């Protein structure tokens, strides 16, 4: 099972396009990528979840950890998600109050 992770720059934000399933097996790859970005000085990050087919608490934990890292540098981490089944996970866990969630990458990077 592969997790696709592509990084691009949009309006001085690092956008991570995630594709595939984020679970206990693949979440460490996402964690490594986000840690790498912060280590390289990217403190304003957008994680695009539009290509994500599955997300569980291990994936949520990675996103929360990354948010703490960028906040330590006065940075930001926002999400792009319009899929009901993924949004539901954020609602159940109360994380809609923690992450800014946008309908498009452009909206997230411009916020």
């Amino acid at each position, binding site marked *: 099972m592969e997790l696709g992770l592509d990084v691009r720059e949009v309006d001085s934000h690092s956008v991570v396009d995630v594709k595939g399933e984020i*679970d206990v097996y693949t979440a460490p790859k996402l964690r490594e990528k986000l840690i790498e970005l912060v280590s390289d000085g990217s403190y304003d990050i957008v994680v695009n979840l539009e290509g994500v087919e599955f997300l569980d*608490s291990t994936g949520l934990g990675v996103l929360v950890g990354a948010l703490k890292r960028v906040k330590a540098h006065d940075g930001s981490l926002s999400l792009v998600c319009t899929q009901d089944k993924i949004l539901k996970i954020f609602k*159940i866990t109360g994380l809609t109050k923690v992450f800014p969630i946008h309908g498009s990458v452009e909206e997230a990077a411009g916020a």
Partner: protein
Amino acid sequence: MATVELEIPSRSVYVAVVRLALASLARDAGLDEERVDDLRIAVSEACADALPVHLAEADTSQVCVRWTEHPDRLEIEVEGRSSLLQGDGEGVRPRRDLDDSAEDHASLSAALLRSLVDECTVVERSEGGTRTRLTIRR
């Protein structure tokens, strides 16, 4: 009463196999796609929790997943060694002895399990390890 048993090596890569198999069984049992999605997440939470946290190279332990169709409910039991969750009766919750980071993760996992299935219990097995039981009413 149909029963299906799956045994996977205690490695995270195999959790996706369990999700795939149980989603297929759930569709066959008549659950709609939204409830199948809920079940996939709940199964993933239970299996991830059952994996040993620090896996030795030579570890040969297995995680056993048992699917049972009853007339009024579907039951999924995951036997392994739960590291994050505990609880029966009052509902599933984080274990008491976790560090801050593990407790944060356990809280998210417990919230998902309490919401996505009708009942979730984690009990100690007399032979060692834990049994997590997920119940979905039909």
